[in-house]
């Protein structure tokens, strides 16, 4: 039988718990690096930028100046590109959120940041802030492109600020919804199908059905809220800006609670 000698351990550090704020900042930096250290994020962003700004340029180039309503600005044209930007934002948010689960990267991620609420906060903040800013910048670029081809429309700063703020709200709430659904499904395909379905497909399909309940339901889907805030129209006449904002916020918060809850409580599986 052998005796066990006390072994000298390696140099040990002072065991002080890193403040949550520091961990959050570091994790956010890691999330930023994680997002932009894969080629797919760059490719998708570039393609989305080309499509949104290019669509703005087409609108400006193809619109007959004599047919433009009085009081219209280039920002009205930019609004038309917002749905494309929204599609890109939703997709980028889902791709970024689900990548860790699809590749198994969640295993090392949770070893590096085991405090799951911090990881959730950092991931949601980085993805939502990045995609929202990206979307706003692209819509601004689209407005500029419309104006460059159709300078008669004008590019008033005040109108631009309002438009970009509204679009920013739509993009942010859409991105939160996408992050939540991505965390909930843990699958890129599942996340994309659910978010695109809720935002871009179901509102249009259900509004076409000849049933009141279907139209009412369509009016309460996040896509209808986004549509109303972008174009001022929705499947139901009862919709207002306030109801649209509430619809978007409720869906976004509910998705984040569901998806975040899964990240916080469930095993770190692919």
């Amino acid at each position: 039988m052998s005796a066990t000698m006390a072994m000298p351990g390696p140099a040990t550090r002072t065991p002080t718990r890193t403040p949550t704020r520091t961990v959050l900042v570091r994790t956010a930096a890691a999330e930023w690096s994680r997002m932009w250290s894969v080629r797919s994020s760059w490719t998708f962003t570039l393609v989305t930028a080309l499509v949104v700004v290019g669509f703005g340029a087409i609108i400006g180039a193809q619109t007959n100046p004599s047919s433009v309503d009085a009081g219209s600005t280039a920002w009205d044209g930019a609004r038309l590109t917002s749905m494309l930007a929204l599609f890109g934002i939703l997709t980028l948010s889902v791709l970024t959120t689900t990548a860790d689960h699809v590749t198994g990267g969640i295993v090392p991620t949770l070893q590096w940041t085991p405090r799951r609420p911090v990881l959730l906060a950092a991931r949601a903040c980085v993805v939502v802030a990045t995609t929202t800013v990206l979307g706003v910048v692209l819509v601004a670029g689209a407005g500029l492109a419309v104006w460059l081809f159709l300078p008669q429309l004008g590019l008033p700063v005040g109108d631009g600020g309002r438009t970009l703020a509204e679009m920013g709200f739509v993009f942010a709430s859409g991105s939160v919804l996408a992050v939540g659904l991505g965390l909930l499904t843990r699958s890129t395909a599942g996340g994309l199908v659910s978010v695109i379905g809720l935002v871009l497909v179901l509102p249009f399909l259900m509004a076409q059905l000849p049933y009141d309940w279907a139209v009412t339901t369509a009016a309460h889907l996040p896509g209808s809220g986004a549509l109303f805030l972008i174009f001022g129209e929705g499947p139901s006449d009862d919709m207002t800006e306030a109801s649209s904002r509430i619809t978007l916020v409720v869906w976004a918060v509910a998705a984040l609670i569901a998806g975040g809850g899964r990240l916080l409580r469930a095993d770190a599986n692919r």
Partner: protein
Amino acid sequence: MRVAGERLDVEGLCVLPVHPVTHAAQPRQVAQALLVRVAAGHARDAATSAAADPVAVLALVRREGDIDLHETCTGPSLLLSVGSPSVRRVITVRGLSKRYGVVHAVDDLTFDVEPGAVTGFLGPNGAGKSTTMRMVMGLDRPTAGSATVDGARYVDLPAPLHRVGALLDAGAMHPGRTGRAHLRVAALSNGISRARVDEVIDQVGLEAAASRRIKGYSLGMRQRLGIAAALLGDPAVLLFDEPVNGLDLDGVRWIRSLLRGFADEGRTVLVSSHLMSEVQLIADRVVIIGRGRLIADARTDEVLHGLGGARVRVRSPRAAELEEALTSRGPVERTAPDELEVTGVAATEIGDLAHALGVPLHHLAEVEHSLEQAYLSLTEDSVDHHGRVPVPANGAER
């Protein structure tokens, strides 16, 4: 029994024969086994009690709340392990269970991992090794029980990545990221410098590949990258799940010396592997599980010793004569017309006996037990998936 200063730090496992029907062990055997395994502060009491009443030793151990006694009956033997409170425990697993529906992946598992040693974590496929390691790292939520490092859950450690490094799944990386970017993300999340990233890349020998995307890496390169990530925080505790998978011979030798070196520095190393020869070469202790339950927790040499006494192989043209002389001294098995295997008799004794009898010897050597034998013996009832050996069409066995 060796005494280190005032302390007697002993711990381990013994394999005791039990009654074939009742599975009961002889109290005196249990007591004697415990006597040499009971922890420091209790050794004198245990010795005194044992002299008066062997069963009292068992009672003493059971009475002490800080001594863990685990008994596992495995067919013909009783495995008895005693954890000593005077041995520092770094990883502590207590009553750990994980259930998926009706499947018990890990079932009431209890063991400790100590610093300054390589602890091998063995078990058949599906035994629950990876699940246990994931629960230690806080990736999976236990159904019951606890798994702690330095007495705290991994998530509650002051600086987790600086305390524990783990390689759990070499394939769990984004294939579109470069090796350096993968480590950079880890470093950023824990405030570790770029210089340290370059250091660990050098340490694992990935300098040339660090700027390439992981999807172009071989399995061995991914293992090295995973090990680099585990080493990033220069942790004192290391958990490796099948670290030699996919490594070439150089890689295997490298990981062997790496793990040995870490243990010699006083770090805590827990390594799971299905390669018994590898574990036998590097592990000071082994924890063997089957169907999620603890089968053995002991020093490697104790497990090997549990297979039985030392065996000696003798070859002689007059084997029958020698066999007759040896039978009274220990079990003798005729393995070939001119070859015997003797259990429980030293090679020197056999040599002297042969010399005295005038029997010529062509071969006399101790037969080393392998961990593979011990492992198979201990886990034979715990394997979920058995392969079938193909039988030739004519039914003849080869």
